């Protein structure tokens, strides 16, 4: 099976439509495409987030994502997948991460996208620093993200 894998760590924004098209154009063996876009949220309930700055570990970030992409391909019958993760400064409303999965059937596409997102949250070497009215601060890792990732090892 021809399952193209695209992984990019980049500062610039991405175009979800272009990535879907790149994965599915000219193919008639794909029945389901799932996309997940992670977006920088703005202030809520008092705290003012003006921006997020994403730091990453070049080299290792790509390697970790590749490892999980390969695992996704081994676990689900995918026709292709794309993972794009930005680094640098992003402001509310802007894209942070994109996962696209393509399969014959919807269940595989949904599960693989969730699997990849859960691992990106807990295992890919990226760190978010938020900057707001009260200054800068590193975002803390969330227990529920660890829990979400753990379900795939059951």
């Amino acid at each position, binding site marked *: 099976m021809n399952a193209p894998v695209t992984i990019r760590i980049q500062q610039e924004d991405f175009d979800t439509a272009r990535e879907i098209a790149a994965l599915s154009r000219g193919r008639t063996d794909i029945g389901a495409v799932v996309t997940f876009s992670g977006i920088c949220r703005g202030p809520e309930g008092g705290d003012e987030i003006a921006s997020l700055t994403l*730091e990453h*570990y070049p*080299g290792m970030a790509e390697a970790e994502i590749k490892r999980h992409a390969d695992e996704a391909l081994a676990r689900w019958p995918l026709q292709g997948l794309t993972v794009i993760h930005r680094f640098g400064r992003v402001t509310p409303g802007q894209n942070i991460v994109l996962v696209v999965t393509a399969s014959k059937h919807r269940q595989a596409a949904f599960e693989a996208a969730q699997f990849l997102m859960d691992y990106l*949250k*807990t295992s*890919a070497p*990226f*760190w978010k620093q938020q900057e707001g009215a009260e200054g800068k601060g*590193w975002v803390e890792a969330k227990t529920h993200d660890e829990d979400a990732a753990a379900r795939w090892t059951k």
Partner: protein
Amino acid sequence: MKVKYFAWVRERIGKAEETIDPPASVRTVDDLIGWLTARGETYAYAFEKPKVIRAAIDQAHVKPDAVIAGAREIAFFPPMTGG
């Protein structure tokens, strides 16, 4: 051996990377954290809660008891918050 620091570990130590030459008695990642901690205040601050610190050897996640012999690049960082 090259050591890299990320996020608040980098900020606390005040540098992104350096080359170190620990003695042979420093066998594991945990040993290395102890050795670095003893180097000064900035290191002690960065590693004040060693259980929180994550490590990678040659760009792959490792546990604190991982042996560092033969490593080209060791990295220390807080829990990841990407995605």
